[in-house]
């Protein structure tokens, strides 16, 4: 993606590392969807991927400790017709795209094995258009893209 042609679509969303603060995510994505006429299915996928990513960071990255922050930015480029969400945290390194991350969540074989709430990475991989992970000095950056179809 060309940095020069990237446009920021929404003011940055800064969340505290508390599950309750995720209530602020829906109004943010809803405002974005309304402003840019994003199709309902794409909005569903965006909300799903962001909710899974952010709740994983809060519960596993920050291990439930409050007083940390997570930022979410949304940008787009005219050329690629893709919405790009960039999520940054200051948690210990965790690459949700690493093969080891999927090994932690095998497909359940019985309802007793079904991990309640343990499907986040599987859902993220399925519903995101594109995914990229970057280790930052003292944090993580996950980039999630969604194609805007015409």
């Amino acid at each position, binding site marked *: 993606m060309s940095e020069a042609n990237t446009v920021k679509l929404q003011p940055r969303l800064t969340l505290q590392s508390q*599950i309750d603060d*995720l*209530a602020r995510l*829906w109004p943010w994505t809803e405002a974005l969807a309304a402003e840019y006429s994003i199709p309902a*299915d794409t909005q*569903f*996928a965006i*909300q*799903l991927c962001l*909710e*899974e990513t952010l*709740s994983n960071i809060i519960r596993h990255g920050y291990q439930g400790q409050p007083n940390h922050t997570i930022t979410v930015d949304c940008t787009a480029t005219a050329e690629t017709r893709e919405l790009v969400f960039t999520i940054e945290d200051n948690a210990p390194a965790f690459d949700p795209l690493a093969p080891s991350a999927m090994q932690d969540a095998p*497909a*359940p074989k*019985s*309802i*007793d094995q*079904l991990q*309640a*709430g*343990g*499907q*986040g990475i*599987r*859902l993220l991989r*399925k*519903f995101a258009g594109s995914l990229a992970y970057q280790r930052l000095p003292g944090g993580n950056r996950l980039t999630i893209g969604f194609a805007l179809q015409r």
Partner: protein
Amino acid sequence: MQIFTEELAGDVTKVALDGRMDIEGAAAVDLKMNIIAGSSKKLLIDLQKVSFLGSMGLRSIVLPARAVNGRGGKVVLFAPTDMVAAVLKTSGIDALVPVHNDLDAALAALQ
């Protein structure tokens, strides 16, 4: 998020969920779902009006389903939208809890 219950013929309890099963929505229905699951042996969870389902929402379905199954009962999921059905499929739940789009088929699966 709203939740409505209805007793149907054949000892079936229908639970209709309405709204977004995100983290907030899941928290809003968890207690009631668990209470219903504690007393029902044939549970039909109507997902027609669920406009969003995330993994915390899945938890609100899986735990009651597990409780009913654990007591020898049966659970079916009814009429999810395409996107909700895709979440159920991706998470593997559709292989463990039957999903039906036809009410007669859903009721038959509970007998």
